[in-house]
């Protein structure tokens, strides 16, 4: 997979969390992910089609997403409930929207599907293509999360 597809997602993730949730996220070293087990407890997945097809996912640990959504809502969230699931869907949407904007500037036009959200310990994430999955771990002051990018080129 071409590395040029990855950076827009890293930039979008950092920007969305900083803007909407006042959360500074620091990207770690990307790695090739071999299995489908989610790194987090709640994951948003969105399919992208256009010049290339693929999926991206954002998988949050319980601690990190409770802190992020508390900041977004301006009130403390204590458990992984429906509101957290909806918020993860919105965050996934915003990351995809912003990354697509950057990709559009590079001449790659993509359309996004509606995100789905999965909750639970050790759930799996199925990317629609069988191509390599690049995972990027992130750290925040309140725990980590991982994004995965999988494109057919």
């Amino acid at each position: 997979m071409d590395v040029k597809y990855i950076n827009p997602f890293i930039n979008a993730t950092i920007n969305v969390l900083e803007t909407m949730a006042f959360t500074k996220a620091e990207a770690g070293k990307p790695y090739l992910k071999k299995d489908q087990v989610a790194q987090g407890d709640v994951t948003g997945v969105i399919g992208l089609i256009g010049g290339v097809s693929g999926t991206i996912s954002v998988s949050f640990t319980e601690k990190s997403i409770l802190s992020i959504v508390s900041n977004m809502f301006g009130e403390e969230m204590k458990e992984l409930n429906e509101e957290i699931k909806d918020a993860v869907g919105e965050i996934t949407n915003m990351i995809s929207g912003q990354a697509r904007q950057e990709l559009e500037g590079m001449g790659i036009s993509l359309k996004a599907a509606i995100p789905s959200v999965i909750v639970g310990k050790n759930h799996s994430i199925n990317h629609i293509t069988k191509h390599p999955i690049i995972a990027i771990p992130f750290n925040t002051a309140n725990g980590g999360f991982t994004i995965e990018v999988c494109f057919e080129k």
Partner: protein
Amino acid sequence: MDLSMKILVVDDFATMRRIVKNVLRQIGFTNIVEADDGSTALGVLKKDKIDLIISDWNMPKVNGLELLKAVRGDESTKNLPFIMVTAEAQKDSVVQAVQAGVSNYVVKPFTAEALKEKLEKVFSK
């Protein structure tokens, strides 16, 4: 800008309405009502005196653009300030909204500061 103005937030996602309300509260607004779709919003507009609409673009039934057109087509609301919220800063969508008479638009994600700036522009006209 009058912080006591009545604002109608339109979005099919409860979460997004909550986020927008939180941002508006950060700016200092307190008088906020909600609608979960364009058709519900039109119902609210018939009953309530609204000073500003902040609406999502993508919604089932009546979407943001259709709501904007309906608002502009009604004598009683044709001059109502209308901010469109969109996730995609794609040129085509913005042009359509401008042609339909949108007052301003914000692209998700946005900060309280960014929204405040847009609102100040709208209300200084």
